[in-house]
């Protein structure tokens, strides 16, 4: 935590010799230097330590049996091993050095920036490298989650059981949702923001680069933990991503992987959010007032506040379930005096804000893309920022709309319905402002813009189905049906995922220094757009007609439509192949990109593509708003501010 970039040995008292790493052989470095190899063996070693600790403590307490596989797994494999792995790859090297009381090592920036592709597999403190690490990792898990979805869609093509058994089916559904939420949408946004936000702010890096690296490396741990649950007896966790107690408490061991995986993913997002907040508050370039920040920065500012405040609640909810499971506590078991609905309240107090954590960064991306591609200032910039804050505040007062049929106190329903419906107002403001930004623009319909416009229209459908669900009587009918599945996919796929695609295409030239293939990009969009609608629109229908969610079997009457949905979902899956092909070939062989192919005004486009290792030679001076398209002579920033100019500006500003 105490490691900022400019620290360079800040606390070191004078008179201490500089620390020198003695030179060693290559093989030695491979095995014992920080890296994946050391990570692997250190992880394995501490599993044993964890097991030993459990057995020793149990023996001391006199609890038999001394060996309890479940607890050994929690302590050894899910707590100690990840820490060992992190220590092994070198996440803690600097801090351990610090805590051992040795003088601070002078920062030589050796862990900063990527020189070869191998550097992406190491602990790196460069926010641009970390951003790309995030994106590649999250798209990896997106692929796996997508394949799982196609597997259970195959099962759903006909009523009855065909390919998988009931436990596996529920497991696939649960792991699919969990990966998509915790290992794709949330961290993919964090990756894009990691890359773009410091550049947009005119900062050389994030506030805490080492913490930033650590946040990234927690992710693969969480992802592997979710996947590993398939390997234990009883199969993967199978009580949905919502993991309602008491069902989740009676589940086989796989459920514990969910309990713990969420902790690692949650810790990762809290650390990143904290880092964004501190960066945005303390590291803006001179002249970059809050009202001159690009909306992507605003979006990540509000999202990060949501994360810091709300995420501990899901951590809590999963701790309680895990304690109930392995320590026989009674938080949610009525026989022992617990209260079942407490789980849902605590879970949704995080998970409703989480849906905005999964949406607000997308709002930011779309604002960047639409304004730049339509060549117009964002319509109503201030109201756009204020509506983000409105959503942030209202977002904490609506959690129980997920519990309208849960049997909670009746008097909570109407207030929660009103706040829920009111969230449509700031959301509506954003949609209308985007469309007004298009009005009379000079619209360039390239791939990022297509995804942005696809987002605007699809998100409106998701928002409107949200209004249906916000209305208690309609929700009583539609809750827990495929209508919900349709709603969440319109907001999360047509919404968040479209914006992630828009963002990846938009910043691709900046990240890689190469241009993607525009024709393939457009093909990807149209195929995705059509098959997305073919897959998810009919789900509204089957849901309202009577098909509940999370079922492997359903009434005969829904057979034909489900068959159609499954086929469409395979096309949707195939469309992703085009994206991967485009990205991979363009990254390796694409034409070299200009530094500012979109002629955008925000700061990341004013430096080379890819940006220099420390972003800026000199911190730029911000002199105006970020979207002053069409304003004669307007500039967002002066890149190498001459001394007098700075002084002048600061006077104006003061």
């Amino acid at each position, binding site marked *: *935590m*105490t490691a900022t*970039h*400019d620290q360079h040995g*800040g*606390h070191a*008292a004078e008179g201490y010799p500089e620390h020198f790493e003695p030179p060693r052989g290559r093989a030695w470095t491979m095995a014992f230097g920080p890296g994946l190899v050391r990570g692997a063996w250190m992880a394995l070693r501490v599993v044993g330590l964890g097991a030993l600790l459990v057995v020793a403590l149990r023996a001391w307490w006199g609890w038999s049996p001394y060996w309890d596989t479940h607890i050994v797994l929690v302590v050894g494999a899910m707590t100690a091993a990840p820490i060992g792995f992190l220590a092994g790859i070198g996440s803690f090297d600097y801090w351990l050095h*610090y*805590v*051992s*009381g040795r*003088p601070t090592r002078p*920062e030589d920036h050796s862990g900063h920036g*990527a*020189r070869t592709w191998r550097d992406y597999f190491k602990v790196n403190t460069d926010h641009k490298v970390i951003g790309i690490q995030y994106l590649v990792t999250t798209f990896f898990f997106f692929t796996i989650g997508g394949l799982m979805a196609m597997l259970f869609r195959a099962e759903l093509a006909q009523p009855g059981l065909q390919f998988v058994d009931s436990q596996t089916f529920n497991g696939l559904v649960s792991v699919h949702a969990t990966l998509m939420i915790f290992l794709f949408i949330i961290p993919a946004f964090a990756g894009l923001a990691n890359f773009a936000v410091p550049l947009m702010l*005119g900062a*050389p*890096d994030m*506030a805490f680069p080492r913490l930033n690296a650590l946040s990234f490396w927690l992710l693969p741990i969480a992802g592997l933990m979710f996947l590993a649950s398939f390997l234990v007896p009883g199969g993967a966790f199978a009580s949905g991503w919502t993991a309602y107690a008491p069902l989740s408490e009676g589940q086989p061991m796989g459920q514990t992987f969910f309990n713990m995986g969420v902790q690692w993913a949650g810790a990762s997002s809290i650390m990143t959010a*904290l880092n964004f*907040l*501190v960066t945005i*508050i*303390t*590291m*803006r*370039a001179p002249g970059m007032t809050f009202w001159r920040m690009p909306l992507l920065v605003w979006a990540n500012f509000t999202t990060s506040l949501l994360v*810091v*405040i*709300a*995420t*501990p*609640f899901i951590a*809590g*909810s999963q701790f*309680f379930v895990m*304690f109930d499971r392995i*320590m026989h*506590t*009674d*938080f949610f078991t009525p026989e*022992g*005096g*617990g*209260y079942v609905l*407490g789980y849902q*309240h*605590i879970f949704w*107090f995080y998970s409703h804000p989480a849906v905005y954590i999964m949406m607000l960064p997308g709002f930011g991306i779309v604002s960047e893309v639409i304004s730049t591609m339509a060549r117009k200032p964002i319509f109503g910039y201030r109201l756009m920022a204020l509506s983000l804050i409105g959503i942030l505040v209202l977002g904490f007062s609506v959690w129980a709309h997920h519990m309208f049929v849960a049997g909670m106190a009746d008097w909570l329903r109407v207030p929660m319905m009103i706040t829920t419906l009111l969230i449509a107002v700031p959301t509506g403001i954003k949609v209308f402002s985007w469309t007004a930004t298009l009005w009379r623009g000079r619209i360039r319909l390239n791939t990022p813009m297509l995804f942005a416009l696809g987002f605007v229209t699809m998100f409106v459908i998701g928002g409107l189905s949200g209004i249906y669900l916000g209305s208690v009587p309609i929700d009583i009918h539609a809750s827990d049906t495929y209508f919900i599945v349709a709603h969440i996919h319109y907001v999360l796929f047509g919404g968040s995922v479209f914006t992630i695609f828009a963002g990846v295409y938009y910043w691709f030239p900046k990240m890689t*220094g*190469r241009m993607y293939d525009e024709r393939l990009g457009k093909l990807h969009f149209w195929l995705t757009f059509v098959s997305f609608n073919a897959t998810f629109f009919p789900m509204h229908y089957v849901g309202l007609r009577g098909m509940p969610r999370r079922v492997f079997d359903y009434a005969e009457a829904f057979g034909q439509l489900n068959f159609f949905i499954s086929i469409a979902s395979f096309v949707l899956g195939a469309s992703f192949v085009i994206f991967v092909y485009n990205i991979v070939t363009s990254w390796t062989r694409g034409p*070299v990109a200009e530094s500012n192919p979109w002629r955008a005004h925000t700061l990341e486009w004013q430096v*080379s593509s*890819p940006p*220099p*290792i*420390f*972003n800026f030679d*000199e*911190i730029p001076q911000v002199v105006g708003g970020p979207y002053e398209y069409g304003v004669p002579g307007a500039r967002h920033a002066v890149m190498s501010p001459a001394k007098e100019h700075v002084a002048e500006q600061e006077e104006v500003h003061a």
Partner: protein
Amino acid sequence: MSAHAEAAHHEHHGPPAAHQSSRVDARVLGMFLFIASEAMLFGSFFTAYFFVRVVNPGAPTEWPPEPYHFPVFVAGVNTAILVTSSFTMHWALQSIKRGQRTAFLAGMILTFVMGFAFLLTQVVEYLNVGFNTGDGAFASVFFGLTGLHGAHVAVGLTLLGIVIVRGFRGHYSPEHHHGVELPGIYWHFVDVMWIVVYSAVYLI
């Protein structure tokens, strides 16, 4: 990929100093945000407590239910110890700011010892409290909240330990004392949190 490698070979060694756009120090702000998040974690435990005891139609009328009881007095003494340690922590920080090294070290050691005593008392209390995690929702809440807090004390003690080691090596001075200040903020948080936990679990 190769384009990236080219850009990486930049002559510049080291970043330009970031512009400091806020009067707040980044590390202090980071610590406060972290504490906000920690407070919410406690919040989730208090919420569970609230549901189990207040909303739950099956909640026992007696809290804790017969025949159990909480060691209110011992925990009260423990509270006093922890609260005192907040003052010694403050004293230590003020001392290093004034450059009084001995007072600083004495303050740190006192704080550490009191924190350690607190934790030890709590372990003994667990061993003698007369019920276990499986004895009902009241016990879940009791062990949940005090355990969560105990874990925070343990983390706090680790941080204090680091400060002491570095303090003895002379790493702090009136100009450089962030390394004392940040663990100090955390320690005060742990103390304040305990007062809330103590009131909610033992007193109400």
